[in-house]
């Protein structure tokens, strides 16, 4: 499997503060990758580095095997949508299409016009007068019309109502089905990621904490509950991600390794939300594949 993106020791510093440090990560091609983490964790910095908008302070970044620094042409295959879906407010949708077509060599104007018409988006209204949901749809159509092989979306769903979130995600998923592109999108709303993303990357305090196939992560992790007195009966060196004790009961998120737990413990599946929250609460816990796991 090819890697869409490979980071090796990647870091970015603002003054004396590191926004992102020691990021080594390989992301497989053809996936829809969720990028999660608390505010200020480094998500936007990571996306801006991948989009070529920021230069790394240290380390290297490869897109589809090409080092980004040496081959700026690689960026022609990368689409990027900023957090505030910046569209020129006085430009109509038609103006924006013309503008996009002049700037991007691989621009698919027929597809873009067809898709905008199907979505019922008005062609002659200035972008500033569209609703938030319509603006997000226009911005996504513009980003897709470039025909990117990798699409980077910074909080594409923030500030959208549930109907608009569904519409934007449906548009994105249809494009994935048609074009097989790789998507890396950041979001705080885990429920929006459950049925749409198949790979999870969690960053926390400027470091990559989790990277893996979501189905694999969910089947490897279990939530276990039992009496707090039974904590000492757990197998030695059981990988515990998070642990909470409420009165007499203990609740732990663990990676089970096949060893039996004993009769005191009840095991159940964890949801993606529970998995993410447990990791982000414990910045010291990590779930990263070895360097070869993705490249295989």
């Amino acid at each position, binding site marked *: 499997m090819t890697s869409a993106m490979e980071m090796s020791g990647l870091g970015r510093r603002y003054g004396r503060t590191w926004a992102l440090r020691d990021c080594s990560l390989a992301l497989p091609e053809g996936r*829809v990758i969720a990028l999660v983490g608390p505010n200020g964790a480094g998500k936007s910095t990571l996306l801006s580095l991948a989009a070529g908008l920021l230069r790394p302070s240290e380390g290297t970044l490869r897109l589809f095997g090409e080092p980004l620094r040496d081959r700026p042409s690689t960026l022609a295959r990368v689409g990027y949508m900023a957090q505030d879906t910046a569209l020129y407010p006085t430009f109509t949708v038609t103006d924006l299409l013309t503008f996009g077509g002049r700037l991007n060599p691989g621009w698919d104007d027929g597809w873009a016009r067809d898709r905008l018409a199907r979505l019922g988006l008005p062609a002659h209204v200035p972008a500033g007068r569209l609703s938030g949901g319509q603006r997000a749809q226009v911005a996504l159509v513009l980003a897709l019309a470039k025909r990117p092989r990798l699409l980077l979306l910074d909080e594409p769903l923030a500030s959208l109502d549930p109907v608009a979130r*569904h*519409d934007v*995600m*449906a*548009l994105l*998923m*249809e494009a*994935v*089905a*048609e074009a097989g592109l790789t998507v890396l999108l950041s979001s705080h709303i885990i429920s929006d990621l459950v*049925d*749409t*993303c*198949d790979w999870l990357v969690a960053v926390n305090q400027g470091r990559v904490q989790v990277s893996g196939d979501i189905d694999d992560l969910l089947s490897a992790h279990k939530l276990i509950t039992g009496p707090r007195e039974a904590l000492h009966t757990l197998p030695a060196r059981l990988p515990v991600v998070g642990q909470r004790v409420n009165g007499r009961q203990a609740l732990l998120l663990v990676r089970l390794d096949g060893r039996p737990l004993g009769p005191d413990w009840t095991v159940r599946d964890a949801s993606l939300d529970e998995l993410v929250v447990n990791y982000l609460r414990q910045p010291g816990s990590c779930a990263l594949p070895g360097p070869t796991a993705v490249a295989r």
Partner: protein
Amino acid sequence: MIGFHLDPRSGVSTYLQLVQQVKHALRLGLLEPGDRLPTAAEVVAALAINPNTVLKAYRELEREGLVSARPGLGTFVERSLGQASPHDRARLRRQLAGWMRSAYGAGLDREDLEALFTAALQDAAREGAA
């Protein structure tokens, strides 16, 4: 062609919900051999889910011999589920609808009906009728 819908509170994984809905449609005769299933792009444009989830559901149905993928054309129903002819199925459904009307008339609610139906299914299984 059928349309899919999702119940996020069902606790059933999304891919399994798609598998079950195709099987359900096969049992009810809503899908018949030769019918085309919606493409992954059509399903995800309606449901906003990852296309791989749809492909996984279709692969499972293919593994069970219910559908087959024809490259470039789509995924088609190979065989039906359930033994009854469309005529028998319609007759039994009418009888069941009559039974439901009289149950509602006797003051039972939906959960009562489901409990009765499940109990009768278990009785029949014990008697070896099923």
